[in-house]
């Protein structure tokens, strides 16, 4: 066990930080204001091999460990939360294939995802089924050598820009969402698929959150992931791992806000001294830094469990996402406070960071869902202890 980052991790962080500070941070305010997907930065990240970090080398990826992937997400999010979702959602969309796909499916799609030529998205949530995934209603009806998908999805990150979506639909409506849902790979140019609308959001405004419609979308059997009825299991296993990306994003947002607050407070003069020289401000900065570091270390501890395929990895990833999301919200709020009135206006980045932070408490399982997962794990452990 080591508690120090490796030289490779340090080097990775330095490289991504340089890129993020020079090329991504200067775009962040404009991306937020215009609410436009940053295609230029998607190309940049692809060129720098940062969209393929979760893929194996044989598919053109760089196969970083999960701590390395977290560092990439964190350093990009430190500059711009919207842009950090590009690698995060690339992995989210690919995870069902990683977990349940055949070698043929991986060989067919991963090279285009690893290179960044294609973007991926994860289509699970429906208008009436958010946290309550088992209430999903979208249908997939077997028809010869394929399935016909009908229904709609909502709140699908990158749903309107992705070339490939992993989509969950009921193959056995009688059995319900838990037992009767299956997972499919849907290519975005399949007839009948559309993304008619994107949401107008409070934060991560450049990241399109789409409504998807499926009108007799025909998908070959070769695009089904796992067996029929395994959809719920695949979705949960995906979220158990993908929420760590959100934890890393939250850590990055918090770090960005902390750095902005320090920079401002060290520069701003009031009552004849720098704002940072007031002890009250120093106490705030110290709390913000310590909380951010705690969230970061929990995220890395969870990342190590994911790589080790630990049986209780969901306890760790939920705990990390819970702590990191709440930390991001608190630290960005405090950063606005440190900047005072300037923190509340768009001339400085912290109000954007505060708006961006809020989503980390909501998506890939609300904080309340994370608490339920953590609590269930706790009770399981306690039960095991009693039996022992």
């Amino acid at each position: 066990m080591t508690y120090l980052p490796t030289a490779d991790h340090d080097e990775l962080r330095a490289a991504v930080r340089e890129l993020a500070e020079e090329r991504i941070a200067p775009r962040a305010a404009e991306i937020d204001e215009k609410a436009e997907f940053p295609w230029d930065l998607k190309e940049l990240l692809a060129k720098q091999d940062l969209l393929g970090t979760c893929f194996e080398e044989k598919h053109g990826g760089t196969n970083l460990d999960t701590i390395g992937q977290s560092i990439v997400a964190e350093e990009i999010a430190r500059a711009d939360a919207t842009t950090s979702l590009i690698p995060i959602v690339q992995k989210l969309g690919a995870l069902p294939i990683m977990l349940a796909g055949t070698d043929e499916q991986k060989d067919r799609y991963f090279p285009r995802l690893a290179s960044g030529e294609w973007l991926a998205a994860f289509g699970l949530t429906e208008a009436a089924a958010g946290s309550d995934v088992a209430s999903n209603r979208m249908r997939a009806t077997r028809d010869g050598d394929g399935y016909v998908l009908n229904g709609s999805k909502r709140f699908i990150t990158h749903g309107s820009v992705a070339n490939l979506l992993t989509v969950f639909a009921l193959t056995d409506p009688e059995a319900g969402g838990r037992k009767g849902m299956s997972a499919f790979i849907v290519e975005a140019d399949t007839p009948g698929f559309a993304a008619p609308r994107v949401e107008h959001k409070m934060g991560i405004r450049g990241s399109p959150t789409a409504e998807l419609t499926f009108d007799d979308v025909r998908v070959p059997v070769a695009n089904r992931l796992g067996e029929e009825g395994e959809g719920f299991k695949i979705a949960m296993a995906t979220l158990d791992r993908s929420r760590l990306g959100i934890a890393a994003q939250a850590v990055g947002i918090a770090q960005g806000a902390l750095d902005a607050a320090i920079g401002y407070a060290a520069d701003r003069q009031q009552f004849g001294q720098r704002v940072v020289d007031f002890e009250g401000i120093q106490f705030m900065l110290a709390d913000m830094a310590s909380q951010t570091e705690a969230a970061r270390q929990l995220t890395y501890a969870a990342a190590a469990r994911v790589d080790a395929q630990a049986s209780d990895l969901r306890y760790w990833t939920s705990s990390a996402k819970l702590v990191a999301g709440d930390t991001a919200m608190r630290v960005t709020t405090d950063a606005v406070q440190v900047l005072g009135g300037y923190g509340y206006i768009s001339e400085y980045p912290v109000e954007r960071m505060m708006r961006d932070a809020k989503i980390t408490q909501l998506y890939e399982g609300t904080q309340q869902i994370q608490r339920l997962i953590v609590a269930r794990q706790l009770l399981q452990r306690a039960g095991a202890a009693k039996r022992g």
Partner: protein
Amino acid sequence: MKIVVCIKQVPATGADKRYTDDLTLDRTSVDAIINPLDEYAIEQALRLADAGIADSVTYLSMGPDQAAEALRRALAMGGDDAVLITDAALAGADEWATAKVLAAALDKLAPDVALMGMASDDARGSLVPGAVAAMRNVPLLSYGSELAIEGDAARVRRLSATGFDWITAPLPVVATVTDQVGEPRYASLKGIMAAKRKPLETWGLADIGLSADELKGAALTVVTDARPPEEKAPTERIENLPAAEAATKIADWLAARKLI
């Protein structure tokens, strides 16, 4: 066609630089980077490699052990291999000694083009490229905004007061390029990973046929103190006047001295 890019590791631009007791720069206390002006030389070399014109790109640096980090960073951007010249006798080397060492190393590496940045970010002497060319008795093509290879000749496009010149010389040459080359690329993740496996050799003075005694030729003046000139009080200040009135005063002041 073989290119050797000479790079220097320098303290990070804007870093709080300190001097050691012998008045040389304390290179251990500050973050070190590739001299930013050398990154343009790297970019130029890699563009020639990308275009299939350069067959190999080697990086050469003289410096302490930690200068290997700069070479690894260059290798992460691209290129094939690197050589670090490091020797205790080189501590505090001036431009003349540096040029002598680089010239000897280049004799051994025998590139068609020895490419350098136009200056270093720390010393800004701009003496080394010319000295290396003179010591190796090869042409110097300096301050290129672009380097092109045509057959057995190299040519640089150099901006001039009235436009630009193309300056051509037969290979081998020493060439320097400016920031007009274009933005240096970022190292990609695959580049960073590949750089760890690229050959990086370390040579001492003996490996390039030099001895410490041969490097003691330069006249050395140690400047122990330097001060900016004392600020002169302004002759006259015009303050807190309406713009029109202030403008009239300035015009009168200039007219009285027959400046307008």
